[in-house]
């Protein structure tokens, strides 16, 4: 395989005026043997994005924290000795914790690239920015979903082993599914907000302040209105089987708005 087909494939004559110089210098340098002539497939790009997320210390630390810390939290709750009537409450609570950690993984996947300016190389090799964002979103759905699923399974195990009060396990599987789905959703929300802001510290601070600070405080004054934007409480409600439709709409709304904002800004932003 040579570079010639890549650079000198037949083109419509109107695209490229034939000049003397163009025909003088043949053949051009050849590419390395075995280099792919076509673009990377979407599954390949998804794999690369997962590799990017987990090839830095910050990414690996977040992934490990999202898996381990919910179980630790569950263990601490068990030590407090408070009885839980239903397993869905603690599963949802520590699952929200896992999802919030995975949100940071999403932020780093997009905003981290702008902060470290690696986005330059990313877009040089894959100029179709929509493809890059799609690959990132799919990678985060997979990473976030799998890590949250492992985290919730482990924390449910801790719950089963340590709680003396014997809570009801009815609805526990649905709660665990909610946690896994939320892990995927939160990671994508983080990626969307990160892409929209293009700055990792700003995106992390802004997101956590909004989700954990502004919304709960505002909810004290306007509970009904604010509940439609309360991301973390929606996971708790959904996990416990309360107001499922509304909670699902709130989570989906966050995913939609942040993804659209991230995609729009990324399309237009100059890589300077």
């Amino acid at each position, binding site marked *: 395989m040579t*570079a010639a087909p*890549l*650079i*000198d*494939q037949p*083109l419509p004559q109107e*695209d*490229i005026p034939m000049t003397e*110089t*163009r025909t003088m*210098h*043949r*053949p*051009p*340098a*050849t*590419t*390395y*043997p*075995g*280099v*792919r*002539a*076509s*673009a*990377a497939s979407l599954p*390949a*790009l998804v*794999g*690369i994005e997962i*590799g*990017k997320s987990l*090839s*830095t*210390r*910050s990414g690996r630390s977040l992934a490990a924290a999202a898996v381990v810390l919910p179980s630790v939290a569950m263990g601490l709750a068990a030590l407090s000795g408070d009885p839980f009537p239903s397993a869905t409450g603690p599963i949802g609570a520590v699952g929200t914790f896992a999802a919030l950690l995975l949100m940071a993984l999403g932020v780093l996947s997009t905003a*981290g690239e702008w902060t*470290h*300016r*690696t986005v*330059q*190389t*990313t*877009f*040089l*090799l*894959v*100029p*179709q920015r929509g493809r890059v964002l799609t690959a990132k979103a799919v990678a985060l759905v997979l990473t976030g979903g799998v890590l949250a699923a492992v985290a919730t399974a482990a924390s449910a195990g801790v719950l089963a082993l340590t709680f003396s009060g014997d809570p009801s396990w009815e609805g526990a599987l649905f709660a665990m599914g909610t946690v896994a789905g939320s892990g995927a959703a939160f990671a994508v929300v983080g990626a969307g907000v990160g892409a929209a802001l293009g700055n990792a510290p700003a995106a992390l601070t802004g997101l956590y302040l909004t989700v954990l600070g502004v919304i709960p405080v505002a909810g004290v004054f306007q509970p009904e209105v604010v509940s439609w934007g309360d991301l973390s409480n929606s996971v708790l409600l959904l996990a416990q089987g309360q107001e499922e439709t509304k909670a699902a709409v709130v989570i989906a709304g966050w995913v939609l708005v942040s993804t659209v904002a991230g995609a729009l800004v990324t399309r237009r932003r*100059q*890589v*300077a």
Partner: protein
Amino acid sequence: MITVSGLTKKYGDRTVVDDVSFTLEPGTVTGFLGPNGAGKTTTMRMMTGLVAPTAGAAVVGGRPYAQLPNPGAVVGTLLDASAVHPGRTGRTHLRLLAQTIGVPAGRVDEVLGLVGLTDAAHRRIGGYSLGMRQRLGIAGALLAEPPVLLFDEPVNGLDPEGIRWMRDLLRAHAARGGTVLLSSHLLGEVEHTVDRLLVIGNGRIVADAPVAELLGAEGTAVRALDPAAFARALEEAGFHVQHGTQGVLLVPGTDPSQVGAVAAAGGHVLVELRPQQRALEDLFFSLTTAA
């Protein structure tokens, strides 16, 4: 071949790149010269689709960069060596690039060896010096052995040995039929590497010619015992005379034998006669400050 036509970039009222057009031919190394802020980097970013032009277009082999099926296999780009994640190791960084371009995994160790980073490959990039990051960026650009290389200020941070290595690398690439664009704000860095100079000042191309042609504005410097009389004699012989400092006469477009012949014919006593080479730096300044 790369054709850039009418590339223009405006930020509000400020025109950073102004109607820039040029062609890069296979088999040549083209130097892209200009002071810092002249528009070199913005031009290269527009050529590679990172920055959207206000007007104009750039095509690689007839297609806009973004429409190349696998751009990393056609164009090896080094724009900003510090645009790397400091937390990854050099090898991991290159492996991710190799996967994206679709280069066999074994090539990563090959390019690491080529740029002399084999021993540092397992270390995190955060601990690399500027020169090492520059080498890592070059390694990334060379992964696919692409026919086109676009290097923006690649010798920043390289030691003299590294600069010579880079020169040999780029010359060899052009000798194999490759196309090279090499930007710099220092003429001395590229004058022995390039075939052709593209000089940019205040966003506009002010010179685009083979190096020899740009330096062709040479002449003779001569000092006579009676400068005024000899100047008259030269003008009568049809030469254009410029008055330099300390009585030196400059006769552009001549070689010393022509000037010496005029002196001999008129019996003028000369105290100095030498070829005058136009200093590259002078040329550079005259072109870029005039813009």
